[in-house]
């Protein structure tokens, strides 16, 4: 195996799985290969895939953000509540995004300044911001947004793609450049590998973490706005349990839960696999709930497979050395 292939073995494996899924699905349904079907796949999960991009940064950094789905709902509820109280709609969106970004900022501040595990901090965020959403809307549902707003996720914007999908692709490219081509991206990896070493190398670890959590909150806010646009109305319980799907996408993409490794390319492939798999299972009349179980199994198996893959080259080299 050439070096580049060994380095990218996980992405290669994902690409093979993806092609396999697509080929299998194509034989199952004639409409599957339509461009519209692919656009639709992304359209229906746009919030998750958008958040997955930000989550990739956070997990590579060695942290986790369990609060994303709640912050997303919180932002959507802020938007709805502001809209209901007569705030101009553009301003309402700005307020919602600012609220989500501050939600991320506060959590990042606690993580960076106190050193408490982000698992706990964002678990508190998961419960707390869902609570805040509930305080805002109680059990009501608010809708009647402007027409152009609903079109963000529906109407063709660029070719067959709606605005939300274009936004996701832009985020993916910009994110990829930041993560893999800038010094900030390198710092994200270094901190994820070993935060102490990073600190002693003069990297401002707290600041990077603060930036990442704020960004994660902001992106969750964007997802919340997109969700409101797609559904046309908002309730406090939207997107419950999304964090499972999002984290699955990121980890399946080869990002290590311990931080320090993984690529955005892998995550993009994993996103395609998860979406196509759900679509394929749906076409094969597998219930949505069973699909969730399959995704859960995929999550475990993807890490098990990584563990095995990590051992393989080592064993082979040892065997060669002995021979």
């Amino acid at each position, binding site marked *: 195996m050439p070096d580049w292939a060994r380095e990218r073995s996980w992405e290669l494996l994902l690409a093979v799985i993806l092609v396999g899924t697509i080929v299998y699905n194509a034989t199952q349904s004639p409409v599957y290969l339509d461009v519209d079907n692919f656009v639709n796949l992304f359209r229906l999960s746009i919030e998750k895939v958008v958040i997955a991009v930000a989550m990739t940064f956070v997990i590579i950094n060695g942290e986790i953000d369990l609060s994303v789905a709640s912050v997303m709902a919180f932002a959507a509820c802020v938007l709805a509540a502001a809209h209901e109280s007569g705030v101009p709609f553009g301003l309402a969106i700005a307020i919602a995004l600012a609220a989500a970004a501050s939600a991320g900022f506060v959590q990042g501040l606690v993580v960076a300044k106190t050193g408490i595990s982000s698992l706990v901090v964002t678990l508190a965020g*998961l419960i707390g911001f869902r609570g805040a959403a509930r305080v805002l809307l109680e059990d009501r549902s608010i809708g009647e947004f402007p027409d152009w707003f609903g079109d963000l996720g529906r109407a063709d914007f660029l070719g067959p793609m709606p605005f939300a999908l274009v936004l996701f692709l832009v985020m993916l490219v910009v994110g990829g450049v930041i993560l893999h081509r800038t010094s900030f991206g390198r710092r994200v990896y270094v901190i994820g590998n070993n935060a102490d070493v990073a600190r002693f190398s003069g990297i401002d670890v707290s600041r990077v973490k603060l930036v990442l959590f704020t960004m994660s909150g902001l992106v969750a806010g964007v997802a919340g706005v997109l969700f409101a646009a797609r559904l046309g109305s908002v309730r406090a319980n939207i997107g419950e349990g999304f964090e499972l799907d999002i984290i699955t996408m990121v980890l399946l993409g080869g990002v290590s839960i311990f931080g320090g490794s993984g690529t955005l390319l892998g995550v993009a492939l994993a996103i395609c696999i998860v979406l196509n798999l759900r679509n394929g299972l749906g076409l094969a009349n597998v219930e949505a709930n069973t699909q969730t179980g399959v995704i859960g199994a995929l999550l475990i198996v993807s890490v098990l497979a990584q563990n095995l893959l990590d051992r393989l080259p080592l064993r082979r080299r040892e065997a060669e050395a002995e021979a």
Partner: protein
Amino acid sequence: MTTADVAGLRGTRSRPGRTAVWIRPERVKELSLLGVIFVALLVFSFLVDDYFSGRFFNRVTTSVAITAVLAVAQTLVIVTRNIDLSVGSIVGVTAYLTGQFASSNPSASPAVAIAIAVGLGALLGAINGVIVAYGRVPAIITTLGTLAIYRSWLISHGEGKTITADSLPSWVVDLPTRTAFSIGGLDIRVVFAVVVVIVVVFQVAMQRLRWGRRLYAIGSNPEAAAQAGLPTRRLVLGAFIACGALSGFAGFLFLSRFGNITVVAGQGLELDSVAAAVVGGVSVLGGSGTLVGAFLGAVLIDVLDQSLVRVPQVSEFWRNAILGALILAAVIADVVIGRRFRRRWSAEARPHTKVGDGSTDTPTEAPVLTGATPRGESGDA
């Protein structure tokens, strides 16, 4: 150098010439939690007319039974630096299947039904444990996966059918209202008494038995525990099995409390269990925390739960917002308390040099003091 000397030198927190009183940090956490519960009760008693009543006491104790068992289960796993996010699904599966069994075998003895619930839970816990300990998949990933797998299995197995209270034998449905004994007009329910016994038994086991000490040892430093020759994999597997078994028991309690069990029963309980443990001072980094603390955390959460609905000024919708803030407050307080104790311990462990000579961070004189090793939750494991 004795404790008194150091205390005298530092001149803070304990009077010169008196031996510093050792309060272990987990006792401080438990006591402050008791204080918080007391304050919460006090505040609510001003807000709600006729707050303290026998009925309220019953409500809290019946609902805390489930949360407390799950908090204990979660703590056993968290102490080993793992986490089990699948407990809600385990509760759902065991409650549903035990309900099915009880309604189709109404003459079966309670012991059999409970054994089925516990055994089933242990089995599901064992699956988690094997994947974590032997497959080396991080617990958060494993249990996030099994959370979905167990639940989706239950949904496809149940086919949307509901277990109804009518179909259950009467002993199951009557269990929550059975009273063990009464103290001054307050009825202590059988269920609550059993749960208190479980908490005490596991607290003693974790504090005194080798098994418990080893779990703490693994959590505070997995590599060191392995180096010391502990069978870490088997112990972690054991912790997951125990967690599953207790969750199964909680599933049985869930069945008897609600009677009507749908396929989504117990959803979200994993959050409550982690919340109770964390509020109770259990560190998610492993190696520290007590079951009494987790129990008190569960009590606080249920007191809030049962009280907020009765406060006319705020709606029940505040529940999660307050709970989230509470968890955050608890962990921040934990860090502050922890820092304070560490400072005191380091003062005990070596002479505290004056600022300016630059030796505060180099333990040059440490070997002198072998007698004053602090007894941390993990130090004597």
